[in-house]
């Protein structure tokens, strides 16, 4: 509708305008012709009469122009006129236009690309109803925030009144057989009101009901649209049909739309939690994701204070499990996307700086140009253009520049974004949804116009305020001081911004170098890892599960090309894992005495396969079974934490299970070995206390903690990864069970570094561009200054100044500019880099080496940028210079 009314109004304006023009033509023609006829009547020849009429009338075009003006031509007409004029002016100086447009396009392109990522990842609301009311609930114990135990969740649901819905889910993967080979799919085990919490309706069918969310009923499943399309050929009659999940026939009751991914976990299936009475009484295993929708009118703070009251009650009800345990809620959005905020904001700030530098450069070019254009502008002023009219015209000219830069910038952004999508970190949620859409285009146009205002304002104001007589009097040999001051300030600002960017990039690069030299704690070469999950139905019995993994190890060890094979509950850098509280012998049973430590359940061959160095004691053997004493191997960090300055070998701790006499009956594990620390959470992360127990001694319930899933770790003799051999080995032991996520250890390491490398790479590119642009700025100001002072230089040379002195003068000026910018930049960087600290490993945000290195680099570049104009200054011929006018 709006489009049509706008179109109509435009047509009317155009029509009225053309009518006005034709009427004016007719009127003026009538005047001249009537005048001619009068002259003819007075006896003048027709030709002569026409000539005289024209002369006396004066310039018709000028009359028309004044006539149009007198009628008050619309602002839009004037704007269009200004834009056309601006475009003509720019076309006349193509060199300037190309440099300016490209510089600006660089700035706009970078900001637009990063903006579209920020928009997709951070700004776009989560695909659910009113996401601001959805909160994520965690337990709080000491300074860690674990998941919620099923028992606590069930009590919270009964006791709390703050939530319209309170639901729980935990991530799991499933062996799926749907018309094809068995596959491993990620999904969630969720309570029935999980979907209602997010307020999202299924695409087809329904979600499961509260009745279906009870133990012992026929299995139902809700599947994702993605899986429905990719694996079930978008079968329209899928609802009601059975598929096999973990070896059991399961009825598909609904399909959730593609956009439904509330926890950003790429879930493909949701099955009812159907907690058993035993699970509902369990307050000791903390693994549930709990999400709540706040009731209307209920604030997060109110809900939190209610939870604090409930936590107090639960502490009294379950003193063993819930002592010192509280709850914390946070908006779901900040839990899911909080990690991305820092890095993306840093990128946005970086491209913002880049854009400012680009604008400063163009403003500098414009100021230099405005000097050569002074006479043109003065002429316009003398002919009656008001200062505001001239300023408007110059701004319009800059707007043309800005829009051209915007168009090229959007092209650059498009290209940059496809690069980011191809190389961006895989773990950044919703990155794949970034595109140059309407909001990104609006952003680009706003940025283009805003920056054209930024770099156009100074020259425009200056031109508008210049006094005419000064310009006509001034000669090009005398430079105007204040103009130079503005230009110098711009350059100083550029250098300062560039230094901040360079420092940030320098810190990240140094951190990345340090991380890449971190010893992972084991030999990563020729190690291949893949995950195997045994389905609960066939492998519920712990002995059956253990034997299956032991048979896989034996079978795989027989494969050619393999040196050794082992299993571990979570291989290093595989993510996830479980932790337990350990009670050192000799301390009373109190949760405050527990040491939280990462648990690794391993086959006896694991430490030797991964080549984790044994620092003291012995490795596990096949004789370490549940019939013998329970043994454990600890890492150095745990040994240091639990028994500082003591020999840990032979020490005992209680953990993981309780003896026959109940919860307070400890089961002791004797430390038989100490191994080197392994960076299991990532090379850049602090090593956590960790302990290893042999698979033959693991507590039966631990099979549930680890979801009957183990990582198969294989050391090859080099050469190709034996993917198919491993697949068929696993299948030969456990039919219909896939091995998935197969990759080399070195690949896993580079995956975990991907994100930081990506940030570092982008920031380094931005910093390099900033350095380049600001050195162009220094070069521009100095060359301009040298050109302006040709006569001064000539005089000095005539008076005996040596070429070296001239060079040093110019160089000195350039370096002085850079040094002032440097000082400001260092002050800014000291403040700015502090927010990088969580992205840095082993480097302090105020790292002196980085600061010195980038400062030197910047000074060096400034020196080079100053040298060219300095050399030009020495080529000045005094005779020519003195005549230079």
């Amino acid at each position: 509708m709006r489009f049509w009314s706008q179109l109509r109004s435009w047509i009317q304006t155009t029509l009225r305008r053309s009518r006005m023009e034709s009427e004016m033509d007719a009127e003026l023609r009538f005047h001249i012709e009537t005048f001619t006829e009068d002259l003819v009547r007075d006896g003048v020849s027709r030709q002569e009469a026409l000539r005289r009429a024209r002369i006396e009338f004066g310039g018709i075009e000028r009359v028309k122009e004044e006539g149009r003006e007198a009628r008050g031509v619309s602002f839009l007409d004037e704007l269009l006129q200004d834009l056309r004029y601006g475009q003509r002016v720019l076309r006349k100086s193509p060199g300037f236009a190309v440099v300016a447009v490209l510089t600006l396009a660089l700035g706009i392109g970078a900001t637009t690309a990063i903006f579209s990522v920020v928009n997709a990842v951070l700004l776009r609301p989560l695909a659910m109803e009113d996401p601001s009311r959805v909160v994520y609930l965690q337990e709080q114990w000491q300074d860690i925030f674990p998941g919620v135990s099923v028992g606590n969740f069930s009590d919270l649901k009964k006791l709390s009144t703050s939530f319209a819905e309170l639901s729980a889910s935990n991530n799991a993967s499933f062996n799926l057989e749907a018309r094809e080979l068995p596959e491993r799919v990620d999904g969630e085990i969720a309570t029935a009101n999980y979907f209602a919490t997010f307020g999202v309706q299924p695409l087809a069918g329904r979600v499961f009901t509260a009745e279906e969310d009870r133990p012992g009923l026929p299995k139902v499943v809700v599947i994702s649209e993605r899986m429905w399309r990719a694996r079930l050929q978008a079968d329209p009659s899928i609802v009601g049909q059975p598929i096999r999940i973990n070896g059991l026939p399961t009825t598909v009751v609904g399909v959730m739309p593609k956009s439904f991914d509330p926890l950003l976990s790429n879930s493909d299936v949701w099955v009812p939690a159907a907690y058993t009475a035993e699970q509902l009484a369990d307050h000791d295993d903390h693994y549930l994701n709990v999400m709540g929708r706040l009731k209307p009118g209920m604030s997060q703070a109110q809900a939190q204070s209610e939870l604090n009251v409930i936590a107090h009650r639960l502490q009294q009800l379950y003193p063993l499990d819930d002592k010192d345990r509280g709850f914390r809620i946070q908006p779901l959005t900040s839990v899911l996307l909080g990690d991305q905020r820092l890095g993306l904001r840093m990128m946005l700030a970086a491209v913002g700086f880049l854009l400012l530098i680009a604008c400063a450069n163009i403003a500098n070019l414009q100021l230099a140009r405005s000097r050569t254009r002074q006479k043109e502008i003065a002429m316009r002023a003398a002919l009656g253009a008001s200062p505001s009219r001239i300023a408007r015209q110059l701004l319009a000219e800059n707007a043309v520049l800005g829009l051209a830069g915007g168009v090229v910038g959007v092209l650059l952004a498009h290209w940059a974004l496809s690069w980011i999508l191809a190389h961006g970190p895989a773990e950044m949620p919703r990155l794949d949804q970034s595109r140059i859409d309407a909001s990104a285009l609006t952003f680009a146009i706003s940025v283009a116009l805003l920056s054209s205002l930024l770099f156009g304002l100074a020259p425009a104001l200056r031109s508008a305020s210049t006094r005419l007589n000064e310009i006509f009097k001034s000669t090009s040999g005398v430079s105007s001081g204040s103009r130079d001051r503005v230009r110098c300030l711009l350059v100083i600002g550029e250098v300062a911004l560039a230094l901040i960017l360079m420092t940030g990039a320098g810190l990240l690069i140094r951190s990345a170098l340090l991380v890449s030299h971190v010893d992972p704690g084991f030999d990563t070469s020729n190690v291949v890892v893949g995950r195997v999950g045994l389905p609960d139905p066939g492998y519920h019995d712990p002995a059956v599960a253990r034997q299956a993994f032991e048979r896989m190890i034996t079978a795989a060890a027989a494969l050619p090309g393999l040196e050794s094979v082992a299993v571990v509950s979570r291989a290093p850098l595989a993510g996830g894992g479980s932790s337990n509280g350990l009670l050192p012998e000799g301390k009373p049973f109190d949760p405050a005495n527990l040491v939280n430590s990462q648990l690794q359940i391993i086959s006896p061959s694991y430490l030797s396969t991964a080549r984790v160095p044994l620092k003291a004691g012995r490795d596990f053997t096949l004789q370490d079974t549940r019939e013998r004493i329970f043994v454990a191997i600890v890492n150095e960090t745990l040994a240091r934490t639990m028994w500082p300055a003591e020999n840990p070998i032979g020490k005992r701790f209680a953990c993981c299970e309780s003896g026959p006499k109940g919860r307070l009956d400890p089961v002791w594990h004797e430390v038989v070995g100490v191994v080197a620390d392994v960076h299991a959470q990532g090379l850049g992360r602090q090593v956590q206390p960790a302990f290893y127990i042999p698979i033959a001694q693991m507590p039966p319930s631990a099979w549930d903690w680890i979801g009957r899933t183990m990582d198969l770790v294989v050391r090859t003799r080099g050469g190709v990864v034996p993917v198919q051999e491993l697949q068929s080995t696993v299948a030969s032991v456990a039919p219909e069970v896939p091995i998935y996520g197969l990759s080399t250890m070195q690949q896993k390491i580079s995956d975990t570094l991907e994100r930081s490398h990506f940030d570092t790479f982008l920031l380094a590119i931005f910093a390099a561009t900033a350095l380049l642009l600001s050195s162009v700025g220094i070069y521009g100001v100095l060359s301009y200054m040298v050109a302006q002072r040709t006569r001064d230089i000539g005089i000095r040379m005539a008076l005996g100044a040596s070429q070296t002195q001239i060079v040093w003068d110019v160089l000195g000026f350039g370096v002085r500019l850079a040094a002032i910018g440097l000082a400001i930049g260092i002050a800014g960087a000291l403040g700015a880099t502090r927010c990088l600290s969580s992205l840095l490993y082993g480097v302090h945000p105020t790292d002196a080496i980085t600061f010195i290195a980038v400062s030197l680099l910047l000074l060096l570049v400034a020196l080079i940028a100053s040298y060219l104009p300095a050399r030009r200054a020495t080529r000045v011929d005094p005779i020519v210079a003195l005549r230079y006018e």
Partner: protein
Amino acid sequence: MDKQLDLLQGTLDMLILKAVSLGPLHGYGILLRIQQISKDRLEIQQGSLYPALYRLEHQGWIASEWGESENKRKAKYYKLTVAGKRRLQAETENWNSMADVIAGILGTKPEEV
């Protein structure tokens, strides 16, 4: 013929208003009317007449419509509006008092100071 006088700045508008107050006229007619009344003693740049006409029309002091001229051609006729009438009156009074003052100053003799 006497020497022609350059038009004082700002007076053209007043003359146009006066000319059309005597009856609707087209642009050329206004020019002739002013020359006729002034007995050809005022020099009016023909081209400057039209911007002035458009300005006055834009300000609402004169209105225009197309009509037929004496030589049977289409011509645009201007006439005074009510607002224009008031404006002419005000300008006339203003001009007269100004002219009195100036004449008084210029006519001062030494002994009168």
